[in-house]
């Protein structure tokens, strides 16, 4: 029996803007097992980041979580008080972001920022122990001469080192569940490879469960055990990585994969998806991909296709799946 660490059920997040409410995350459900990496992939505006912030309950007005459950190790996070939630954030569950320069505080040393986090969650440690732990964390993420580096401010570190510092901070209280939101998007490829390797090593070492968000199909296929594809706040497809890339069933997934130039497999023309992602209020009532889908029918426009398990472990929400 698989051990579910995270279980998301019918999560719904709505933004109440002047032009009316918009569901950025529209009743999505998924599970992540212990030690597993679930990749979430999609283009800008598909709701992948809002999903992560919803899990952390970090949605600010005009946004609001309007329904669903997020069960982390048996507890529904949506039912916790704000105080209880604060001890979960950075404790059992931590998050790393795309832009370490905006996520880190520029006027505090990185050592101080890591210590703050440790102090908040481990109140029984002495000041010296906290400092020692901050240095140990920097060492763990491969920052050279960590006892010197704790005294540095974020701007004194390079992009790759800042991302390492942020990972150190996120892992300082032994989280069971890590959300990584485009952690390597701002980095160069050789540095990206270093950070991905680091995340993987730390995950194995601490048996962490990871939700990894990116728009990069290459990164997602190398780091995830399973992949969820999102479009317009909906789940299009969830499957094991290899299965998803070799047998995509949702027309959006298939089109997305073939629109990306693949290294070593040359084609003369790339397949494209006509049009562009609709504005928040232009989505059809049914399947969000209807307007750009070559297989769409009147049924798709009017009704939302349910997420259905078509082959074992492969879930698709489409009335006319590919293949």
């Amino acid at each position, binding site marked *: 029996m698989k051990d579910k660490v995270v279980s998301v059920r019918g999560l719904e997040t709505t933004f109440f803007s002047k032009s009316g409410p918009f569901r950025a995350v529209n009743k999505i459900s998924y599970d992540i097992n212990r030690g597993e990496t679930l990749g979430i992939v999609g283009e800008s505006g598909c709701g992948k980041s809002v999903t992560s912030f919803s899990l952390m309950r970090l949605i600010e007005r005009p946004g609001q979580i309007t329904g669903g459950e997020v069960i982390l190790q048996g507890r529904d996070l949506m039912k916790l008080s704000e105080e209880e939630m604060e001890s979960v954030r950075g404790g059992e569950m931590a998050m790393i972001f795309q832009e370490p320069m905006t996520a880190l505080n520029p006027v505090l040393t990185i050592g101080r920022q890591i210590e703050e986090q440790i102090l908040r969650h481990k109140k029984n440690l002495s000041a010296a122990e906290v400092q020692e732990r901050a240095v140990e964390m920097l060492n763990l993420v491969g920052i050279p001469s960590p006892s010197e580096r704790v005294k540095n401010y974020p701007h004194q570190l390079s992009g790759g080192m800042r991302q390492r510092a942020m990972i150190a901070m996120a892992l300082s209280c032994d989280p069971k569940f890590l959300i990584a939101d485009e952690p390597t998007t701002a980095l160069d490829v050789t540095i990206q490879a270093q950070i991905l390797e680091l995340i993987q090593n730390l995950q194995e070492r601490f048996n962490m469960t990871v939700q990894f968000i990116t728009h990069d199909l290459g990164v997602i296929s190398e780091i995830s055990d399973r992949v969820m594809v999102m479009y317009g706040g909906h789940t299009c497809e969830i499957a094991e990585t290899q299965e998803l890339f070799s047998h995509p069933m949702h027309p959006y997934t298939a089109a997305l994969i073939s629109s*990306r130039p693949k*290294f070593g497999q040359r084609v003369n023309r790339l397949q494209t998806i006509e049009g562009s992602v609709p504005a928040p209020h232009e989505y059809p009532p049914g399947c969000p991909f209807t307007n750009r889908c070559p297989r769409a029918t009147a049924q798709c426009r009017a009704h939302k296709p349910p997420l259905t398990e078509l082959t074992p472990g492969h879930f698709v929400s489409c009335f006319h799946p590919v293949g």
Partner: protein
Amino acid sequence: MTENILEVKNIKKYFPIRKGLLLREVGQVKAVDDVSFTVRKGETLGLVGESGCGKSTLGRTLIRLYEPTSGGIQFKGSDFLKVRGEKLRKMRREMQMIFQDPYASLDPRMTVGQILAQPFEIHGMLPGQQRIDRIKQLLETVGLKASHINRYPHEFSGGQRQRISIARAVALNPELVIADEPVSALDVSIQAQVLNLMKDLQEKLNLTYVFISHDLSVIEHLCDRIAVMYLGKIVEIAPRDELFKNPQHPYTQALIAAIPRVGTGKKKMKKSLGGEVPSPINPPSGCPFHTRCPHKMDICVQKLPALLNYNKNEDQHRTACWLYENVAK
């Protein structure tokens, strides 16, 4: 034999670093440091490298948006660095640029019609109705509608804006287009549309591209020849198939190894390269890559290797690396 449209010889672009009250020059950023190559008519030359390697500076120097510190550029056989005034403007008509950020490169206060009229205004071409007809035709060429002429940039998506930038670049029928990361700011599905458009236009208008990107998958898809840059220098240049089949420079090898492959399935990550790019203010002695190179030898620290051909079967393949020096002898 194909003619060379652009010949670049020993181009350097150094930016001064000024400090203090008198803004005295205290050092230089060697953004482009002694780079030579040629671009042939009708081909797409890719410039690839990581941030700070000088690929964008080089692109801008090629059309004299930056004046080079030293070196020579021949455009269609004549000395491009010597021309001034009216002659320079005429030559620039034949070379255009597309920028990365379609949000920053279009004036938000101008309509699309006004933006696309500018090239004609500057060069005093096509009066009145003829100009409007040509602008409408340009919009259709890049896959937009003639009726979009009175809209403002904010009414378009990122991909559509990049189409407007492309329309502006090809408005005067240039021969050479320098494209600086034209698809990096776009979503995957939109990238494919813009890449296809660029390929179509190249065939239709007989364009030569210098395509700058950090994304090797995109470079592989589009380019005929590829130059790999590191810290202001070209470390390897070769035709596409040759470069990917037989990469010689350890940096090129690491770069290729670091590309995340689509559809491979989860694998154990292995970093291809440790360390980080050194500062171009104070670049390492000898070969700029020696601080990260797994094959470092004594000579690499002392002397800069020249960009030479080490492959008997492919004379277009040149690499700047001491590893191959014995092979050449």
